[in-house]
């Protein structure tokens, strides 16, 4: 039997952690783009668009991310798209992230006083101009801290992609456990690596929050 040293375990986990980072970035960037479109639809559209986006958000926030991953994974197979854990994970996490970011950003826009909108309107600005020149610059400043904070949720969310067979940090941990029979050590390392990824981001978000207050 091959002996695994602690360094072997840690090195393999570190290699797998790359995919956690890559998947997180894809979800965060993709979710940001989709979330921004949802936000604009909600702001610009009449009652119907706002209600559809509201239902979208409620759907993703009211169901388990694990189920969303399963639905993406098996749904694509059902509709004849070749299923890879990669694509299903990226898709589900992007949609999940977009719902949360749209909701976070909506709150930020809503916190801009009504008077700002009215003042811009009285300067004969169109809705687009009101958003671009008056509301969004202020809302963006408020949005940075909670957006950075949400990145932690995304990173932790990628751990669930292990369940549909995507080999990232958690899945690698399971695989190494099966080879080494040292679950206590392996999962401790896995947890510490997630902590090393997330804790600095949490601290930074808290710092940004304090700076704004």
């Amino acid at each position, binding site marked *: 039997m091959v002996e695994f040293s602690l360094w072997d375990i840690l090195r393999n986990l570190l290699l797998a952690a790359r995919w956690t980072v890559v998947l997180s970035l894809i979800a965060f960037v993709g979710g940001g783009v989709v979330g921004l479109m949802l936000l604009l639809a909600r702001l610009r559209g009449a009652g119907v668009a706002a209600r559809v986006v509201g239902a979208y958000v409620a*759907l993703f926030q*009211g*169901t*388990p*991310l*694990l*189920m*969303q991953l*399963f*639905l993406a994974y*098996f*749904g694509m*197979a*059902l*509709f*004849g798209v070749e299923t890879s854990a990669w694509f299903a994970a990226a898709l589900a996490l992007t949609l999940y992230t977009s719902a949360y970011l749209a909701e976070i950003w909506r709150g930020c826009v809503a916190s801009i006083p009504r008077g700002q909108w009215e003042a811009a309107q009285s300067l004969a600005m169109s809705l687009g101009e009101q958003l671009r020149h008056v509301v969004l610059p202020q809302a963006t400043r408020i949005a940075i801290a909670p957006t950075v904070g949400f990145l*932690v949720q995304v990173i*932790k*969310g990628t*751990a*669930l992609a*292990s*369940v549909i067979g995507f080999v990232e940090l*958690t899945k690698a*941990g*399971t695989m190494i*456990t099966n080879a080494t*029979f*040292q*679950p*206590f050590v*392996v*999962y*401790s390392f*896995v*947890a510490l690596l*997630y*902590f090393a990824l*997330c*804790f600095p981001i*949490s601290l930074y978000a808290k710092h940004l929050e304090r700076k704004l207050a």
Partner: protein
Amino acid sequence: MRVTLDFLAVLADWPLLLKGVAWTVALTAVSAVIGVVLGVACAWARSHGAPWLKLLVGAYVELIRNTPFIVQLFFVFFGLPSAGIRLSPELASVIAMVVNLGAYATEIIRAGIDVTPRGQIEAALSLALNRRQVFLKVVLPPALRKVWPALVSQIIIVMLGSAVCGQISTPELSYAANLIQSRNFRAFEAFIVATALYLLLSLAVRRVLNWLGPRFLFGGR
């Protein structure tokens, strides 16, 4: 291409689904009660405890909040046995959920405690209440009232997170869906039904907790 969906094949297994829902509700109820109590205790420790206790609770909160629930669950279920602690899947799930909720509840409840006006505490002390009475009767109820919506949301997040517990074969809702799809190969339909049930559960749990909290935890409307 034509896609045919067969929901009846899934719904025919309704006893399994019902059992899954019951387990999900039970896991959530038990871990909500114990988790909130743990959160209150840790929140007290973080704002009134000795310095070493503050540090310890702070480390617990940050460690849990910055690692995924699934890793915490795997650590409890697969990791602890090699340290001599053997747990059933159900017990491991409850422990992981309590530990997870406790960390988030600590921060939420502390936020409520921290905004208690100084004068209220001084007034209570001047009425000869001791420290414990002041905390339990004067500080805690209004704090809980203030943060209850956030606490309810967190309990729902933990309930949705419990879908992962099926991975260690706890017989909750997602486990039931998995079992059904392995029997009839209707994976997409099974998970749609389970997802819809989770959505209904989260709506129902929010209603129930919004009703329960004011009646039993902090009195008044």
